[in-house]
């Protein structure tokens, strides 16, 4: 039997007491503490396999069972790590930040309540993008989801971690409309209009009366969210698209400066992303098909990849969706801006309501195929990403790219970078692909990641979301006025969760009794 990971201050005998308490409250068929169980909840894309091992897991099937688990955790001061479905691969998946925590796996909670008139949905944590898609399809509802590149996961979990999709509804955390939360005390609270008993507008008006708390439970450890409201996009009359390629790395400035004003004006509303050639090559092929040379890919290989797939150095897809008259007018403006940016090629497409839906992620359809990129190096694959928020400005984007690309070459990494258009910002996603079976390559990831964090910090650029390994590091970069935000977060944490049981260390927020665990 392998050593059982234990949280600070808890003995193995005490862990057995905790397990028995969970079994009495939930039933033995919802409590998982075997060696194999622990292994199945580890981080599947880990850079360091030794970190973040759980002590076990429990799988409540109702809000009442979540409350019961939280009360037991308080009794034994046993840290819980809530997951919705645990599929945010690249950020830690189902694994807890603090080794020895018990995973609170809510993947069995799968209720869906849909308001067809208003286009809103109330979901439990276990509802995956495929489940909601199936519900919409089975009931022939005229709405589209916004889906991320890995849609295996939870609709709620993705939004609560500020996941992104591609459509106009792509900033998922902004579409959250009302939460139900089990507080660390076990008490149940509803936010917004949900606080008003029997209000029919919980998913329609987000603020209620007084302070609005929805965002307080996003990327935080202040409670366990058990229901989430979300707005969905009306199925459009038409979707007009263009897939555009540009030839040179330096074109990035012109692309951003051409389209950013239209994004700010809400003429271009899709969360489009400017990405390089490896985004395609890593999904369709493996590295050994192109070269056996170590280090960053050379220009000869880049040229071969681009030639085979007809790619530019950068590519971008834009979709304009809605009523046909409006969409056509918007599209014409976007097309003129793209034409003026000297593209290498433009491929246009049109979809009209009633035509077969394309399973491409732009049309409310969930997808998982982009995760094929984890197989780029062969072996047991994985990836993590460094994704700072940068200004929506061409010069800033180009300089960020040039700095980062130079670092990829310095560390011998294949560059997979993209620049996502937010409304007033851009997210510079830098993927680091690896094989878990190549220790030499893996050893470079951590210093490389830390270098990128330091480089971005010098520019005033902070990450929007990160892997478990780097939550303390990234939180530490949000340091204005003597770490005032961290102090506020931890004051709130201690007030709500005096025993420090909910997700200690999440987003760099530690409860007082475990602050010694803070990493660097």
């Amino acid at each position: 039997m392998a050593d059982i990971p234990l949280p600070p201050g808890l003995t193995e005998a005490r862990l057995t007491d905790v397990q028995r308490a969970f079994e009495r409250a939930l039933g033995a068929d919802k409590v998982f503490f075997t060696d194999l169980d622990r292994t199945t909840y580890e981080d599947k894309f880990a850079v360091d396999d030794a970190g973040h091992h759980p002590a076990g897991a429990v799988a409540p099937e109702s809000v009442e069972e979540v409350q019961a688990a939280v009360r037991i955790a308080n009794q034994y001061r046993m840290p819980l790590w809530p997951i919705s479905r645990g599929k945010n691969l690249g950020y830690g998946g189902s694994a807890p930040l603090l080794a020895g925590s018990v995973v609170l796996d809510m993947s069995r909670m799968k209720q869906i309540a849909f308001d067809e008139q208003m286009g809103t949905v109330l979901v439990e944590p276990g509802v995956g993008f495929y489940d909601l898609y199936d519900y919409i399809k089975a009931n022939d509802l005229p709405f589209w989801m916004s889906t991320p590149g890995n849609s295996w996961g939870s609709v709620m979990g993705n939004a609560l971690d500020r996941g992104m999709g591609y459509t106009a509804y792509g900033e998922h955390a902004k579409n959250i409309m009302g939460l139900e939360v089990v507080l660390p005390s076990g008490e149940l609270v509803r936010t917004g209009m949900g606080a008003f008993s029997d209000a029919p507008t919980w998913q329609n008006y987000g603020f209620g009366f007084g302070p609005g708390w929805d965002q307080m439970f996003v990327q935080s450890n202040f409670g366990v969210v058990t229901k989430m409201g979300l707005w969905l996009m009306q199925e459009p009359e038409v979707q007009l698209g263009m897939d555009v390629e540009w030839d040179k790395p330096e074109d990035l400035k012109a692309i951003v400066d051409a389209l950013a004003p239209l994004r700010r004006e809400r003429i271009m509303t899709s969360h489009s992303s400017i990405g390089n050639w490896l985004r395609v090559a890593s999904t369709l092929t493996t590295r050994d098909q192109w070269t056996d040379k170590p280090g960053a890919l050379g220009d000869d290989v880049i040229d071969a990849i681009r030639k085979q797939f007809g790619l530019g150095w950068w590519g971008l897809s834009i979709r304009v969706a809605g009523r046909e008259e409006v969409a056509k007018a918007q599209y014409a403006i976007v097309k003129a801006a793209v034409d003026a940016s000297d593209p290498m090629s433009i491929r246009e497409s049109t979809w009209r309501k009633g035509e077969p839906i394309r399973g491409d992620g732009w049309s409310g359809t969930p997808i998982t195929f982009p995760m094929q990129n984890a197989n780029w190096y062969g072996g047991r694959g994985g990836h993590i990403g460094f994704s700072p928020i940068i200004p929506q400005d061409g010069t800033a984007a180009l300089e960020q790219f040039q700095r980062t690309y130079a670092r990829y070459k310095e560390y011998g990494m294949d560059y997979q970078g993209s620049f996502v258009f937010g409304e007033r910002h851009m997210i510079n996603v830098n993927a680091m692909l690896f094989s878990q079976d190549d220790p030499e390559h893996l050893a470079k990831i951590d210093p490389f990641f830390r270098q990128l964090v330091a480089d971005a910090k010098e520019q005033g650029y902070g990450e929007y979301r990160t892997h478990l390994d780097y939550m303390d590091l990234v939180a530490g970069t949000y340091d204005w006025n003597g770490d005032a935000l961290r102090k506020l977060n931890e004051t709130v944490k201690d007030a709500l969760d005096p025993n420090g049981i909910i997700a200690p260390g999440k987003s760099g927020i530690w409860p007082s009794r475990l602050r010694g665990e803070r990493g660097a």
Partner: protein
Amino acid sequence: MRRALVLSAALLALAGCGDAPPQAPAEGGGGGGGPPPMPEPVTLADRPDATGGEALYLEKCAMCHAPNGMGYGLLGRRLDQPNLELRDDLTADYVTTAARMGIGNMPAIPRGEVSDAQMKQIADYLAAGPHPGEVGK
């Protein structure tokens, strides 16, 4: 490998990484008509009569193992038949071990997500394959 590449290219209009919105590979350059329509995801709504292991397979596995899923694409690089429902060489023990331990890029599936009883139904269903009638519905 060549066969798998052609297969994948036909299915893909987009490629991306994690939450990074993807782009379209303009195969052969620009112009002309746009990408071919990609297949829709396969879910229970497509096969409403499915029960038991077949229904569980659609709910728990098809997101990766149906056409345009990660598992389908990666298995297509190594096997002539990437669709698990059309395989005639799967045993229940192999399916269970692969799912619980993980295999290649496939993460391990915990019991909280798929119970032992559900796993047995899925494994028995796949071991009884191929199921061309079900896939073709």
